[in-house]
């Protein structure tokens, strides 16, 4: 199985340690959900993978490319979409896609075809020539997502991608992500909506205090909590139960090896 993202021994300290000795792997054709309480180090981890924050230590490989020594090559196959849409209010969605396609040097014909396709799929075709300044938060998120997909990235890094989206738009985005995964792409995302991770993720990583507490399929995580004798009366059947049990006492939690599938 091709490894889309390998992170080894990643460290980052701001005023206090944000990420400590983090290891994780995402395979091609896999959707990986990184979960954790507020301030756990999820966004810092993703920003380091996207090349926005310089790690103090550690290795990041994107489809075999060392992202620290050859960031441009790694970025060429990566897309980053944070919870705050990275768009320009004074540009129309179409102009925004033209700009982003230019940044990634997308072939003009391919860029045009993808823009038309993405705008249609995300329900933005009728708004393609209106400036984004009047758009709702959800619409802005959709424009940003179209921008993230215009260069057909192999690795998609998403920080809270469903924030601000209505039910229909959220469903649409989830379907698009799963389509990409089925097509051999890789997705790593953070979310506070555990139901999303439970339904969509092939594997889940749980992070707290900058450390990866557990990683694996939902079944493997359940098995770990049962094995550790931390399951509730009902056996800790939902991801929410597992998440709360693991993050309630992160120090006592088992390390990743125990849960890896």
């Amino acid at each position, binding site marked *: 199985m091709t490894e889309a993202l390998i992170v080894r021994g990643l460290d980052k300290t701001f005023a206090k340690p944000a990420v400590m000795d983090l290891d994780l792997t995402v395979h091609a054709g896999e959707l990986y959900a990184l979960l954790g309480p507020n301030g756990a180090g999820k966004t810092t981890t993703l920003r380091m993978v996207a*090349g926005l924050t310089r790690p103090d230590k550690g290795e990041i490989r994107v489809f075999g490319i060392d992202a620290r020594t050859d960031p441009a090559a790694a*970025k060429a196959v990566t897309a980053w979409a944070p919870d705050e849409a990275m768009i320009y209010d004074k540009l129309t969605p179409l102009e925004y896609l*033209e*700009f982003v396609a*230019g940044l*990634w040097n997308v072939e003009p014909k391919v860029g045009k075809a993808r823009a038309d396709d993405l705008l249609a799929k995300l329900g933005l075709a009728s708004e393609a020539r209106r400036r984004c300044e009047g758009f709702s938060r959800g619409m802005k998120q959709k424009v940003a997502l179209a921008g993230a997909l215009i260069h057909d990235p192999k690795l998609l890094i998403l920080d809270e991608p469903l924030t601000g989206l209505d039910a229909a738009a959220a469903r649409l985005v989830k379907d698009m992500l799963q389509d990409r995964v089925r097509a051999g792409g890789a997705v790593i995302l953070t979310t506070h909506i555990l139901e999303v991770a439970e339904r969509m993720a092939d594997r889940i990583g749980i992070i707290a205090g900058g450390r990866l507490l557990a990683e694996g399929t939902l079944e493997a995580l359940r098995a770990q909590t049962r094995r550790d004798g931390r399951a509730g009366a009902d056996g800790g059947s939902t991801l929410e139960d597992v998440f709360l049990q693991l993050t309630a006492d992160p120090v006592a939690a088992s390390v990743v090896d125990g849960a890896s599938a």
Partner: protein
Amino acid sequence: MRLYWRNFRAGRAGKGPRGLIGLGVLAAVMIAGGVFIALGLHDWRPPINALSVTIAALGCLVVFTLMLSQTLSASSEALYERGDLDLLFSSPIGPAKVLFVRALGVAAGVTTLFLLAAVPLLGPSIVWGHPGWIGLFGVLASLALAATAAGLLLAMALFALIGPRRTRTVAQVLAALVGAAFFLASQARTILGRETSGSLVADIARQAQDGRLRPPPVASLPLRAMLGEPLPLLALLGGASLLFGLSAATLGRRFSDAAAAAQGKTGARAPRRGTASTRAFAGGVFLATLRKELLLIGRDAALLSQVMLRVLYLIPTALLLSRNAASGAGAALAGGAGVVVFLAGQVAGSLAWITLSAEEAPDLLAVSPAGTSLLRRAKLAAAMLPVALLLAPLIGVLVWFAPVVAAWTAAGALLAAWSSGLLNVWHQRPGKRSEFRRRGGSSWLATIAEIVVSALIAGATGLAVAGFAAWSLIPLVLAGVALLSLRRGEAQIARNGRTLVNS
């Protein structure tokens, strides 16, 4: 008022120890100037006659237009800025009170700006020999109140006449025109060719000597108030306060309705195109970034007025230069070429500050594989292209009448624009466009350096046009030294704030 004060402090120049030192030095220089003025004017008692009354009234008119430019801009922006306005209008406070406080904040801001210049210069004279001159501060306050009332009325009238979509842009353009009104009016006579000298004061003095100058009695109010006569001062303050209070009280409801109507209608609709064109996706990183920056410059109403004011000063000078080139007036040509070069540097500097520092999506650029230097080149090109387009007709005329002057002017303008751009690369302060207005201008060091370097290159151009090409090397070398001393490495640029991380 506390919210307004917070915004004012957030936007003040000179943050950090270096900024404070800079402000301290500036204040010391101004106070020293004020002491010299106090020494020179200690025994002088200004006469109250037709000439002094007219000059004081005209001075007030100039200050009023400058203030109106700012209050009109601030009043129209207040309609579109959501922030605390939504909170205030959703609270049980009446709209008239909200507008009154908001307008008072605008007036206080404008007064403070003028007081910052007036207090150090006139303070020593007030302390030493002319206590009555404290009335000048009262005159400034009354002018600010009247300008705020006029700015509000104009903004609301525009909103009613042309609607929310166009008001923001038109108000900013109008604000720039009002700000430059006095200069444009004084230059109009010269450009139209009726006069060779634009000195309005000399003209007024001539009329006073001939006994033809007879200002109406009410025109003496500003001068008498400035000299500390209580009744004229009270009349001005009372009149301005009344106008201010009446406009805030009567426009309160209309303002809250307009602010609600303005929500989400910021800016004209983008021109419609057919379907996505393949050509628009061509060109790679450089062209895509250039295109994006030019679109953003053209669509940002608030930034438009900042740049337009400088452009307005450039146009009459360029017209004058063309006229002098046609008539072969040598000395005037040299001076005109210098002014054009200086203003080209200033306009390019303003635009470069916008394109380089005001980036709404810095993370998007940082996660892209595009190199930082290529992105910067595209942003610099976007800042210089409008200046080139603006100067192209002038250079065209000069090529026809005086090709050598055209070559020097073009070279000087290019050099000044490029230098200003480089200074903005080295001293950029990345921030979001939405925060841009609060942040004020670029770093004070870059602003002063831009002026000095542009002036030196302008001087070199003037000397070259006047036939002293060898002498022009001196200011050019000085400009080069200034640029080299202000050069910043990549690491230093990155320390200035969020910046692009690709290399």
